[in-house]
């Protein structure tokens, strides 16, 4: 589903964000990307969603070579992806319905379909009762779940989450991760950037560790290698 081959990414200032990244994420897989702040976790997600462009190497997402996607086709490509931010990025002057409906309206769905799918997505995150509320009336955890509902409402093939639990307490963070797991179980490829290694180690999924833009460790069997990763993290 997602392939990185010798990928480099440098900002115009010369700052190297990613260096020689080789990565393969299968369809329906759930993967965590961890590392310190500035390690390149967010940049990795941004390259997949074409928010930033890599400077060297090759990235293939859903069979499409990202280098060959022209600027005017980027928006269509992004409809395959759901994106979740640490700070929710909800529209405060719109109701929860309007916020969650946004990807469906962009895709041109009819009103009945929009209504049905928004209700289903809100039901999934257990916030259907807040459908007519405004984001500011919700707690941080609820806002984040609305962000998740918005990211999945158009049934994307890939779900990217950038520090989705950054502002949540441990209980809510755990619930959030479980929610991602549920989406993964129905076939969505999930890639989560998180610095909370203590929590993600319990999810029994592949963890990729980034340090200074390079992959320093990746494991298919996180439990078996957990100790090693934790030691490396301490070194980092």
């Amino acid at each position: 589903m997602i392939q990185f081959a010798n990928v480099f990414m440098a900002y115009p200032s010369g700052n190297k964000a990613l260096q020689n990244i080789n990565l393969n994420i299968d369809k329906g897989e759930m993967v965590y990307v961890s590392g310190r702040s500035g390690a390149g976790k967010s940049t990795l997600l941004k390259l997949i969603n074409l928010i930033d462009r890599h400077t060297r190497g090759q990235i293939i997402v859903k069979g499409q070579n990202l280098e060959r996607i022209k600027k005017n086709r980027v928006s269509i490509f992004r409809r395959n992806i759901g994106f979740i931010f640490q700070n929710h990025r909800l529209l405060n002057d719109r109701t929860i319905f309007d916020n969650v409906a946004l990807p469906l309206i962009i895709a041109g769905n009819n009103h009945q379909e929009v209504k049905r799918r928004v209700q289903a997505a809100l039901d999934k995150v257990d916030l259907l009762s807040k459908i007519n509320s405004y984001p500011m009336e919700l707690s941080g955890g609820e806002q984040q779940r609305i962000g998740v509902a918005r990211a999945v409402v158009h049934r994307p093939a890939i779900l990217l989450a950038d520090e989705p639990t950054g502002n949540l307490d441990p209980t809510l963070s755990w619930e959030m991760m479980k929610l991602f797991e549920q989406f993964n179980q129905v076939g969505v490829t999930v890639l989560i950037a998180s610095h909370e290694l203590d929590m993600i180690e319990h999810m029994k999924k592949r963890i990729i560790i980034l340090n200074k833009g390079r992959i320093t460790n990746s494991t298919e069997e996180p439990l078996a290698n957990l100790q090693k990763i934790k030691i490396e993290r301490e070194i980092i």
Partner: protein
Amino acid sequence: MKQHIQTWLKQHAHAFFFSLGQYIKNPINNILTTFVIGISLAFPVGFYVFLNNVQILSSGWDDSIEINLFLDTTIDEEQANVFANRISKRDDVAETILINKDEALAEYKKLSGLSGALDVLDENPFPNVILVKPVFVDIDEYKTTKLINELEVMPEIDDVQYDNTWIKRLIHIIDIVKLVTFILSVLLAIAVLLIVGNTIRLSIYSYRHEIEITKLFGGTDSFIQRPFLYSGMWYGIFGSVIAWFLIAGSIQILSGPIENLSNLYAGDFQLVGLGVINTLYLFGIGVLLGLLGSWASVKRYLYAIEAK
């Protein structure tokens, strides 16, 4: 294909109602902006209505244009009659009236009261005169001058008299008013473009966060620009409505005094308003300027915003 068109129509309908909703949501600012646009549109259109009325009024004066041809004294009445018929066949001449020298003398005697003095003359000093009425629908200095120049060189004619000073003045005044209206229209059209453009620019900045999110979830540039273009259209439509009311109100206020003035000159002139066609033009121009202003702003500022 059908699905694609349906999606496109749905998105247009969404942008149409969304932009109208945004306009209604923020009434004070939008109404003030719309009033400025309305006044800017009302000025040139008001001048146009004024010019239209002047032209309607002056078209009645065309009948009073008369060119007097004093024929050579050697031309007798029969020759004068043939010559008058010849001139009346010209495309630019509506009618000719021959006043023979005897009629001219009789009329002069009657008007001057010098009947006794004129009786002592051996022969009639008056030439045969032809009154020429041009065919022009509107006052047209170029055509009138051309006709006079062509008549002057004819050997049968001794002198051509045409008192056109007042018409020349009127024509020049109308030309100046036309030019002022044109310049004013261009300047105020630019003002409308700038007002709409700036309003949309501020709107784009206030929706920056939403634009970024929309781009992240696959919103195309066309999808994002549509509500802004429709907003420009609403400014144009509502601005035109205000301009229409301003002009209609002004005509209503002025029509009474102008009718009274017209009655004093034994006329029946009545002020003419915009009419259906010109109202459609007003709304068309309003919408066009609104769309152009917003389009320029969208091109300049919207495309610069990238998903983050």
